[in-house]
């Protein structure tokens, strides 16, 4: 039996004006277990708190019930007071007799009666309270950034600059991501490479940053502050530590016809290659699908010409185990496949291209060295049609339901740059809405129209048909003029919708981070915690969380870094003691609780049990990681056997409150 003290607060006249506080403390003094009951003007005041502390000592109280304002207001105050008097802070319960009683009722007998019942419920709960200890878990002072695009790079740099170690895992041979493929960036039109490559170099040179290029995350275990990650370093058949990136091998390799993914297959590379000149790390990679030596053991030319002796045909995938305190997901995006959009003729004509391909066609390092030429015949295009919202805002199932957010701006950029470089071209942009809400964005778009004479037409392209003479017949509607247009175009550029990278989904499973139906990572709170995943210790940076342009990505990357720094700056994490706990003896190991846990706090172990008949049996049982559990209680209801309970809000505690409230008296 607990020894409970009841403290009824007047809150000046806030409570005492409507509730007969003396009657309440008198009535509650007769409840089982109550050894002390008192009322006082302001319980939260210094003097009031002292009353509580003194009573705890004088009456050896094991539980405290404060009848006062909302626990959201002063629960912590009274917990601290109890703790200072040597009572476990979780032995304090608050009966809310102000917000939920005195302030809403006018009639004193009614309010008093209700206050007594609320007090009884709190007493009933305290009877079943158990002392709880906040746990501690150490923080490993290193962060992992998954994805080495602009988001990952920025996050890594910010974290490293704060003095913490960061690993970047990038699945491609070089970091840099999509931004390396861009020509210029809106709305200021600086060259993407000029602003990105210095950052890439910074990463490479930063003593706190370690880049795992051509690598993937294989396995993630652990929890916030304490992740254990297995990284797979894919075999590149070149010893990274020896390769100087001189390019001798890539020049001599006899296999020439390999489609170059950096230029989206619009030109070719060799079987051994460095993706582009400013690649970081600047290390060659052998493509085993094309290399003669790896395919049939004949060639070996690259090994011969390599002065550093870096070529290693026998290299295997390597697995590295690392520990981290925090993980940042920065897996980025890809344009969608266009096979559901036959009407635009993407697969029928080389001159129908995606916007990303257009970037490469206008980029000085691209397949045409920056001269805008038709991919089919290498001629200069005179009429270019840009189509927006290809696959975006599409609820028919062919594309994506969301707005891809970046297309309006880059299309304006493309149109503007084309008109600037080639004033003799006619440029049409078909749009549904032009969305330009960023800083200087609308001005940018208006410049395309007003200064560069781009024809913006409200309407959609219905059909692109390649003609025998190489022209593209574009059939479109002009909704404002109310006519159907037929344009003979030389080049059609599709502002293709973007989607999360395909690696994101399996990664989310590994991280137990939740995703939305579009495979974007969900944030812990859409407004208030936009760079955190609901899973503690997992942070989000860039387009993996939703479509984003570069300025937004960089801001989010910095924000994610700030959150990571905040976490790594702590030596230990204090954990909320009101967490779920599984009773192994009753657990069936059915996984229901794990399925509803938003934090991945539940794991399973095979445990040997001694059965009542003295045999042993191995059973799968759930185990809650108190450092990760946030105490929502979803698991407790999912559990059919009642093995899962929530400390501080246990089944018996809540039922005791129910009983006290419903009691017939």
């Amino acid at each position: 039996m607990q020894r409970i003290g009841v403290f009824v607060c007047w809150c000046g006249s806030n409570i005492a004006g409507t509730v007969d506080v003396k009657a309440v403390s008198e009535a509650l003094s007769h409840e089982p277990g109550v050894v002390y009951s008192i009322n006082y003007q302001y319980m939260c005041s210094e003097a009031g708190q002292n009353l509580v502390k003194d009573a705890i000592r004088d009456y050896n109280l094991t539980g405290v019930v404060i009848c006062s304002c909302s626990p959201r207001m002063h629960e912590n105050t009274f917990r601290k007071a109890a703790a200072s008097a040597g009572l476990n802070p979780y032995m304090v319960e608050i009966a809310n007799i102000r917000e939920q009683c005195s302030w809403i009722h006018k009639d004193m007998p009614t309010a008093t009666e209700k206050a007594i019942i609320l007090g009884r419920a709190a007493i009933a709960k305290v009877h079943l309270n158990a002392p709880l200890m906040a746990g501690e878990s150490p923080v490993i002072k290193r962060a992992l950034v998954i994805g080495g695009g602009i988001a990952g790079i920025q996050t890594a740099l910010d974290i490293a600059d704060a003095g913490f170690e960061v690993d970047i895992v990038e699945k491609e041979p070089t970091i840099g991501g999509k931004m390396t493929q861009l020509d210029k960036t809106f709305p200021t039109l600086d060259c993407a490479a000029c602003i990105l490559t210095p950052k890439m170099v910074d990463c490479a040179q930063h003593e706190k940053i370690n880049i795992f290029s051509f690598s993937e995350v294989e396995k993630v275990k652990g929890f916030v502050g304490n992740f254990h990650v297995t990284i797979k370093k894919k075999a590149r058949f070149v010893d990274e530590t020896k390769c100087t990136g001189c390019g001798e091998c890539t020049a001599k390799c006899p296999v020439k016809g390999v489609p170059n993914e950096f230029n989206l297959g619009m030109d070719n590379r060799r079987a051994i290659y460095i993706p582009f000149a400013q690649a970081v790390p600047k290390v060659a990679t052998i493509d085993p699908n094309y290399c003669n030596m790896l395919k049939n053991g004949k060639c070996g030319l690259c090994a011969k010409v390599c002065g550093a002796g870096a070529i290693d045909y026998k290299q295997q995938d390597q697995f590295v185990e690392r520990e981290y305190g925090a993980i940042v997901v920065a897996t980025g995006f890809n344009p969608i496949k266009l096979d559901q959009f036959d009407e635009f003729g993407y697969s029928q004509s080389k001159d129908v291209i995606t916007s990303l391909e257009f970037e490469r066609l206008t980029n000085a390092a691209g397949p045409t060295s920056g001269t805008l030429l038709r991919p089919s015949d290498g001629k200069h295009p005179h009429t270019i049609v840009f189509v927006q919202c290809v696959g975006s805002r599409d609820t028919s199932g062919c594309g994506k339901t969301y707005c891809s957010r970046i297309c309006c701006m880059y299309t304006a950029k493309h149109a503007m740059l084309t008109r600037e470089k080639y004033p003799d071209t006619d440029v049409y942009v078909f749009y549904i809405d032009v969305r330009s809400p960023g800083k200087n964005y609308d001005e940018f778009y208006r410049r395309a129209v007003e200064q560069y004479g781009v024809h913006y037409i409200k309407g959609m392209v219905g059909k692109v048909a390649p003609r025998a003479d190489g022209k593209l017949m574009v059939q479109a509607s002009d909704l404002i003029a109310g006519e159907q247009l037929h344009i003979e175009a030389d080049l059609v550029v599709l502002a293709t919708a973007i989607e999360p990278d395909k690696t994101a989904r399996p990664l989310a499973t590994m991280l137990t981070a939740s995703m939305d139906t579009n495979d974007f990572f969900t944030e812990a709170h859409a407004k208030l915690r936009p760079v955190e995943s609901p899973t503690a210790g997992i942070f989000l940076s860039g387009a993996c969380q939703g479509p984003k342009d570069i300025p937004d990505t960089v801001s989010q990357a910095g924000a994610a870094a700030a959150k990571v720094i905040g976490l790594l700056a702590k030596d230990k994490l204090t954990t909320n003691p009101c967490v779920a706990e599984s009773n192994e003896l009753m657990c069936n190991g059915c996984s229901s609780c794990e399925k509803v846990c938003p934090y991945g706090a539940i794991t399973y172990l095979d445990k040997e049990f001694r059965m009542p008949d003295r045999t042993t049996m191995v059973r799968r049982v759930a185990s809650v990681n108190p450092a990760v559990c946030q105490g929502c209680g979803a698991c407790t209801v999912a559990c059919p056997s009642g093995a899962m309970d929530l400390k501080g809000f246990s089944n018996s505690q809540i039922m005791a409150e129910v009983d006290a409230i419903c009691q017939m008296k």
Partner: protein
Amino acid sequence: MQGMMIARAGELLENGTVTRVLGWQTGEFVYDITPAVFESAEELEKGFVYNSFCGNNLSKYLIQASRKEGKILVFLKPCDTYSFNQLIKEHRIVRENVYIIGIPCDGKTDGEFLKAKGVKGILGIREEGDNFVVDTLYGEKTIAREDALPERCRNCKSKKHMVYDELMGEEGEVLDSHRFDMVEKLEAMTPDERFAFWRSQLSRCIRCNACRNVCPACSCEKCVFDNPQSGIAQKAAADSFEENMFHIIRAFHVAGRCTDCGECSRVCPQNIPLHLLNRKFIKDIDTFYGEYQAGEDTESRAPLTNYTQEDVEPSIVYTRGGNN
């Protein structure tokens, strides 16, 4: 079929694939068949039986049996395979230790059901074409097979095995059954009628726990109703509230996990149509959250451990059609 099964089980015991066989054993009468484990060809010859009275769903026994040394052979009827899969999904059965032979089923009856049809003093039963010919103390009686089958078999949901290592006989199909007809009929009643219906049914409950203990979904290490710490433990239904409570919570705990095998209703000594509670949940889940058949696979998320942002609100209960 029985002969083939005995032969094949003997072979598998002989060649060491399995060490035990879980099947059905003959009894005193023609209908009182008991699930049993056989360890030799002789035992199989002596007692193994497979006939129209082998209604027991053997899947639940595998929770214990698959944890023992050696592999066990089990014969599963189509509807038992759903339970098996569901138990695999919940990590309750060690799959590697089980060898499944899928066997066909054209419906199972039992002695109690025939008696409810007015047959007294059953001495023997022959299956003649589509009829059961029952030899009784009081003369011979012929019942059409269709009439002799309990509801769960007349509305069989599937003749197809969801899982097996080996199949005997022809594989069947998932069927379009009318299993929700009675649920719909109840839904169409007024609440007062429904209340009266369920009171008349549940008031007969003697809380023998047969429904729970036979249920493959009710496989908890310790049931909340047996656990004094749960706060809702009951040893006997002391009043109507406890009758309701037990059956509501039991149905809720198996909601989304119940494969609708119908064992609960088969074993109820008071003949309470308990499957109508489970089927209500199944039907609601199908309507609210899309078709879902527990035990169809071992991977999918169960409806109650899943959600969509667009799920219906609980207020649908007040607003949907039908009688209020």
